[in-house]
């Protein structure tokens, strides 16, 4: 028997004080795992777990935060939005069926294609990834739930409110109408609230996406079961990790772009107006730095489903696990080097175009590798053509066709010919249907018995597949030719004598056949199945942990957190299900009546901590409603209610954190089973919350970096940045701001150490000083641009300086709230020398904040004088 100390990384072990050090035996021996559990005890344990994890009764059901409920709502909502966006597509196809048609007026058509693209991307494709991951990931990882269930719920309600707001604008005829990428000046000059609805509504949803990314990354890194080292992770988890990372670097540039865009729309700060030194190209860069990785953010998690289905269909482990990891990680990186291939016709230097063309070709290598690994698995396996496999096969065929046209349009000279024609429409639908729709539907068929405990119809599935597959090709294959014949995108009608009419008619027919296929699927998904028998436990014969689920669903996620030694535990680990069902693994009981899961180390999955997880709550819904108000009221230039909503949203979040996170536990350690004693409270890098802050701040830093990029962009692209004789920020006030904010950071950091050292009184004094210094520093920063009189609407240079100041001050305000929260914690006994997770997290936030404060000071105080 081995002591857990021997499994711990020496560096990490040295950093842990003795009191919270995990104690006991790890890994468990065979004898320990074979030890029978008394049947009465087993029943009592099950009853306690069932009570703790029960979903709230009656109307309180909607306060649930459990991943199985939130994941199901999330997926169904995204699917509903997809159907709406699909209806818009059908209406557009009706309009285009014959030349000179007057079914839809031009402006309505503009609104429809804008909303079709925006809804499919922001309300369906990305949220669907988050939804499915929230639904499935804990089961893949043998965890009871996600690390932050209330955050998932908050993300869901924010998504629902934002989605309904954006989508319903079409019913009032005020939807955005400038295309899903909202290019200025068309979108900045557009009349009516359409552009604002797009900007604010979707920014709100992007925030929800980033919340989900944080949750999923922490889930993969910290909530794997003991023994599941990084080389044993299910491939889906690898993809989630990669895609979560991509969201952190792809969405923030768009949020930064939205911020600049909205400042121009609302306050006339001329970021994209060339007459006052602005440049519309900056929006294109920021949009596509988001927009191209976005395609892979959609594609990778869907193909990850294929990576789960294929081994089951082939009845053998995946071939080339390492190669698929390479492919996922490699694609994640390379996909950031492609964005300018959407901008080949904007007149950038040909040398620059060459880089993006080359990177667009290079990304084919990792993308191709994973498809070959799938094919290889099927070749060497003993394939059963289970119904989901049909969808995966269709996906691979369609995606490959889309990939081939992708190689064509990655070549700048070819792209100049087909840019903005129907060839592009065909290409992108081939990649998205093949890379997203087909694998997702295959995944729904495959995982339905897991999350619904019933089966969908094999026969309807096949009908739906063949309708969708043929309909899709009838619709989109001719579009390649339509595009080559010169038909531009986004035209609401066309003349009848130039050879486009019959191609369009065929496409319209195909669109309706596709829609019929999707409807069959929708019916199969939603039809009542009350009379149908429950599914058997492992209907496809899979080897991964989700098929260890209980039928019917007892609500607890997993009976005990298992000990894992294989990539396919159900195939390879002897007596696995029996051990799981009798509660011989970790935390088989809930004696304290609390929801719990096991937190393990990032690489080797050594148990570190028993985390207490939050349960049902209304405060998350209130937080989402008020956050929604804060984003939605400004659309109609109603600022006072927006500010009130913002304050209430912050209040709801503080209530939620105060009442349910980092609570002082009833005992510092608890018996986790199998001879292991684990701490119930940890702080710093061992705590999931710390990782949550770390990952959020990585994303936040990317947004800040995008603003800094903006400054350098104007400097390279514009001769008048900064303009001759421009007023600069006051050096004195800037230096003072930097010093005060640095002082605030230092006080926070010192408070953490001093509090830990057992001197909470001194820490309290520091925590009173820190926010005062921060407020003074933020004020000095505003005065630095205010006193010399930088007028943001006069030119892009002062506007950019103001943008940096506004951004930084908003973060300083958040930092002040966090310092105040910690101060209150020390006063009311929630934060003690021993239980100090909040202070660790606040300090981590301030590490990031002080860097961005100093950069802002340098950008406004020093840099312009050097340029």
């Amino acid at each position, binding site marked *: 028997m081995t002591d857990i100390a021997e499994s711990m*990384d020496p*560096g*990490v072990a040295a950093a842990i004080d003795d009191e919270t050090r995990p104690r006991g035996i790890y*890994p468990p021996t065979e004898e320990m795992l074979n030890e029978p559990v008394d049947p009465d005890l087993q029943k009592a344990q099950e009853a306690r777990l069932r009570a703790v994890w029960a979903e709230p009764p009656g109307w309180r059901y909607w306060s649930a935060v459990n991943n199985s409920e939130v994941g199901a709502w999330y997926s169904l909502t995204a699917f509903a939005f997809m159907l709406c966006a699909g209806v818009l597509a059908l209406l557009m196809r009706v309009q285009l069926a014959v030349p000179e048609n007057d079914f839809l007026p031009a402006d309505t058509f503009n609104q429809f294609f804008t909303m079709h693209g925006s809804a499919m991307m922001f309300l369906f494709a990305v949220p669907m990834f988050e939804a499915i991951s929230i639904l499935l990931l804990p089961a893949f990882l043998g965890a009871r739930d996600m690390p932050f269930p209330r955050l998932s719920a908050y993300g869901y309600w924010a998504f629902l409110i934002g989605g309904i707001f954006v989508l319903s604008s079409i019913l009032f005829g005020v939807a955005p109408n400038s295309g899903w990428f909202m290019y200025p000046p068309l979108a900045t000059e557009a009349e009516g609230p359409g552009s604002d609805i797009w900007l604010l509504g979707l920014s709100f949803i992007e925030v929800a996406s980033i919340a989900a990314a944080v949750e999923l990354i922490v889930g993969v890194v910290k909530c794997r079961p003991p*023994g599941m*080292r*990084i*080389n*044993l992770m299910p491939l889906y988890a690898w993809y989630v990790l990669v895609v979560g990372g991509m969201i952190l670097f792809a969405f923030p540039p768009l949020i930064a772009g939205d911020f600049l865009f909205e400042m121009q729309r609302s306050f006339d700060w001329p970021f994209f107006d060339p007459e006052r030194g602005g440049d519309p190209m900056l929006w294109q860069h920021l949009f596509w730095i988001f927009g191209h990785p976005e395609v892979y953010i959609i594609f990778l998690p869907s193909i990850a489903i294929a990576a789960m289905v294929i081994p089951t269909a082939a009845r053998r*482990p995946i071939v080339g*696990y*390492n*190669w698929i*990891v*390479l492919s996922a*990680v*490699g694609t994640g*990186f*390379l996909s*950031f*080097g492609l964005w300018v291939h959407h901008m080949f016709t904007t007149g*950038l*230097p*040909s*040398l*620059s*175009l*060459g*880089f993006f*063309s*080359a*990177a667009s*070709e*290079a990304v084919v*290598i*990792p993308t191709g590798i994973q498809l070959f690994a799938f094919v290889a698995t099927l070749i060497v396996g003993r394939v059963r053509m289970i119904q989901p496999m049909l969808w995966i096969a269709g996906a691979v065929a369609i995606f490959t066709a889309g990939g081939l046209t992708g190689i064509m349009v990655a070549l700048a000279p070819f792209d100049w010919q087909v840019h903005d024609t129907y060839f592009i429409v065909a290409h992108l639908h081939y990649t998205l249907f093949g890379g997203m729709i087909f694998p997702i539907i295959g995944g729904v068929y495959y995982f339905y018995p897991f999350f619904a405990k019933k089966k969908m119809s094999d026969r309807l599935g096949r009908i739906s597949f063949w309708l969708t597959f043929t309909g899709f090709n009838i619709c989109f294959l001719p579009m390649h030719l339509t595009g080559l014949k010169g038909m531009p995108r986004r035209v609401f009608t066309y003349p009848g004598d130039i050879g486009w009419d019959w191609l369009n008619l065929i496409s319209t027919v195909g669109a309706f056949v596709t829609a019929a296929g999707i409807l069959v699927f929708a019916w199969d998904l939603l039809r009542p199945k009350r009379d149908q028998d429950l599914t058997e436990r492992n209907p496809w014969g899979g080897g991964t942990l989700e098929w260890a689920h209980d039928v019917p669903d007892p609500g607890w996620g997993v009976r005990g957190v298992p000990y*894992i*030694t*294989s*990539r396919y535990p159900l195939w390879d680990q002897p007596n696995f299900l029996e051990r799981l069902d009798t509660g011989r693994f970790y935390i088989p009981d809930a004696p304290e009546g609390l929801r719990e899961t096991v937190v393990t180390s*990032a*690489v*080797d999955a050594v148990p570190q901590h028993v985390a207490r997880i939050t349960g049902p709550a209304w405060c998350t819904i209130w937080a989402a409603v008020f956050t929604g108000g804060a984003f939605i009221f400004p659309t109609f230039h109603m600022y006072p209610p927006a500010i009130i909503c913002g304050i209430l949203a912050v209040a709801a979040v503080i209530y939620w954190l105060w009442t349910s996170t980092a609570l002082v536990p009833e005992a510092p350690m608890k018996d986790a089973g199998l001879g292991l004693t684990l701490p119930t409270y940890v702080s710093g*890098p061992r705590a999931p919350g710390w990782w949550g802050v770390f990952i959020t701040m990585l994303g936040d830093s990317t947004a800040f970096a995008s603003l800094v990029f903006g400054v*350098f962009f104007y400097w*390279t*692209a514009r001769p008048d940045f900064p303009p001759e004789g421009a007023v600069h920020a006051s050096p004195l006030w800037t230096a003072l701001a930097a010093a005060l904010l640095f002082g605030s950071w230092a006080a926070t950091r010192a408070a953490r150490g001093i509090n830990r050292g057992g001197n909470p009184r001194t820490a309290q004094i520091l925590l009173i000083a820190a926010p005062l210094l921060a407020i003074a520093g933020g004020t000095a920063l505003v005065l630095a641009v205010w006193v010399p009189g930088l007028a943001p609407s006069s030119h892009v240079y002062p506007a950019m300086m103001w943008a940096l100041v506004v951004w930084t001050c908003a973060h300083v305000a958040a930092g002040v709230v966090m310092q105040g929260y910690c101060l209150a914690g020390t006063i009311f006994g929630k934060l003690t020398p021993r239980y100090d997770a909040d202070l660790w997290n606040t300090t981590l936030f301030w590490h990031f904040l002080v860097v961005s404060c100093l950069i802002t000071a340098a950008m406004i105080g020093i840099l312009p004088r050097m340029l």
Partner: protein
Amino acid sequence: MQFDRRSSLWHMIAAPIAWSLHFCVVYGWTASVCARGWDAGTARLGIAIATGLAIAFIAAIGWHAWKQWDYLDDFDYEHDGPSVEDRREFLGHAGWLLALVSLIGVLFNASPALFISSCV
């Protein structure tokens, strides 16, 4: 967070990070040179230097990863066991493959400078 290379994810992704930095430097440098109206030869020289540095760095990362994988020692390829050795060799193997793909990426990205001799 752990920085021991045998158990570190950061080492595994060091090569693609080098690719990203190379990409940003090359793109930013070319954009600045061309926007200022300087000679494209200056841009190409900078690209050559950045590419040389990136290749050297990626080669070093790849060599360490190869040694960590230690393929020729025991011909382990799948790394699907629960031991420390499996994890160490897996991270080496994946790091090596990523170094390879990053190297190809860097060479691809530098290649336009071989063929295109002007900003226009």
